[in-house]
């Protein structure tokens, strides 16, 4: 059976996350119910319970970030143990085409890779709203914080259960017919890179998306104290989703072959493994996307009459208008890193 020290660590973090997630669900349900009660002391009880909820959210944030990193370290540690694998992609194929629990492994690892960022975003949204509440001191936000924490708790529990299932299912040494993203796994026709014209179109799309999102964020960040209007932010959020999709396609289909000096190799795992600084470029891109998402959460969940209060303007910590600026730094950092990598390659 294939295992490593990181499997044990991932399992340990998974158990902690499951417990913290269950506690967050329990506190979240209680707070949501308290938020619906109209009695006088219910609001006090909700407020004092929100502090515990915030502590749980910070704990969950730490655990989710740790488990996100440990997941990839664990998958990477399986590479030398699996003869057909040359990178994490090969490991994600373990169990493919098999029956029973063993055949679930590829689906579980794909699910995990979606749940990890979703969890970090959900907890971040709850904490961003909590910080807004701490700055503005209004109880209107408490039921919304409770709802977000409840959602984060559900995602955390689901993520931990998936991770524990992945870790506990034995990975037998059944060799697949083909191993990895190299020649043995991919049909010759899929080895063909994009044509120069398609690459050019994708490159143009990438630079246009970056320009559009940076311009939108620059306009938003220039007026940090101004109450955010929900509808224009819908455009910003759609632009962020499009940008992250185009950027990932650009990184895989255009940047990978150039940076790795391998014209037929389009593997994100290999890119991060062999040119590790690209991990930071992708991290900054995700940070920018998350910041846009949190801006929208604030705009949609914080009532307009408290968004631009004097208290929030005086506060030195990021407020509603602060997150677009942080997003701008993330996008610019990612863009500079990827462009520099391409130029130096």
């Amino acid at each position, binding site marked *: 059976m294939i295992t490593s020290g990181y499997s044990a660590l991932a399992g340990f973090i998974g158990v902690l996350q499951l417990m913290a997630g269950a506690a967050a669900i329990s506190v979240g349900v209680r707070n949501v119910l308290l938020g619906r009660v109209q009695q006088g002391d219910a609001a006090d009880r909700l407020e004092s319970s929100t502090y515990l909820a915030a502590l749980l959210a910070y704990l969950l944030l730490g655990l989710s970030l740790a488990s996100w990193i440990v997941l990839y370290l664990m998958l990477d540690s399986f590479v030398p143990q699996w*003869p*057909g*694998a*040359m990178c994490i992609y*090969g490991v994600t194929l373990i169990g493919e085409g098999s029956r029973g629990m063993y055949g679930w492994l590829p689906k579980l690892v794909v699910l995990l890779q979606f749940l990890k960022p979703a969890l970090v975003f959900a907890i971040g949204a709850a904490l961003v709203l909590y910080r807004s509440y701490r700055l503005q001191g209004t109880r209107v936000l408490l039921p919304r914080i409770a709802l977000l924490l409840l959602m984060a708790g559900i995602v955390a529990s689901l993520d931990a259960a998936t991770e524990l299932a992945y870790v506990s299912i034995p990975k037998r040494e059944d060799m697949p017919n*083909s*191993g*990895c*993203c*190299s*020649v*043995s796994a991919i049909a*010759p026709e899929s*080895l*063909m890179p994009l044509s120069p014209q398609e690459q050019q179109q994708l490159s143009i799309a990438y630079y246009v998306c970056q320009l559009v999102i940076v311009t939108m964020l620059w306009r938003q960040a220039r007026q*940090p104290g101004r109450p955010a209007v929900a509808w224009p932010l819908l455009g910003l959020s759609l632009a962020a989703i499009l940008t992250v999709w185009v950027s990932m396609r650009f990184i895989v289909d255009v940047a990978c072959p150039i940076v*790795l*000096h*391998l*014209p*037929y*190799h389009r593997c994100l795992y*290999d890119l991060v493994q*062999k*040119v*590790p*600084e690209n991990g*930071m*470029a992708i991290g*900054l891109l995700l940070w920018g996307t998350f910041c846009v998402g949190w801006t929208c959460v604030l705009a949609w969940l914080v009532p307009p009459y408290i968004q631009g209060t004097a208290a929030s303007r005086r506060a*030195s*910590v*990021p407020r509603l208008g*602060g997150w677009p*600026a*942080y997003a701008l*730094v*993330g996008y*610019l*950092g*990612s863009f*500079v*890193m990827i462009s*520099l*990598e391409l130029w*130096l*390659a």
Partner: protein
Amino acid sequence: MGKGFWLFSMTVAVLAIGLPCLGVWMRRQQAPQCALDGVPIDAIYAVEIAGPSGNHHRFCCIRCAEYWRAQNNSLDETVHVTDEVSGRAIPAEEAYFVRSSVITNPITLNRIHAFAEGEDAEAHARQFSGRLLEGDARPLQANHANLEG
């Protein structure tokens, strides 16, 4: 904007410019890698394809070179394989090829071996349940890419 924001921005700026430069500088002394899948090349199994313009591509095994040629079919290429006995490069058309039970690369599952001498090829075939590849079965023939493993 607060002090924290500017500190964050400066850190991102320094890392965004510094890390790629540092990374490229550190990777300059890397071992040669296969032009198809990027794995380190074991010198005894290396294959080299030289184009008419003088550009060279090195591969970790015959199978990778075959796939690469399937994508870049050119009549003017010269292909050199490595004799597994002596370790010297020989033209592909002069080599003896054997498909045996010995896998040279666990990732590509390549089983084709190259030898400069016919006796060495036959000895390898006898020892490892292999067979000599002749005629159309020979890999790396001009304008022909045999993708069998």
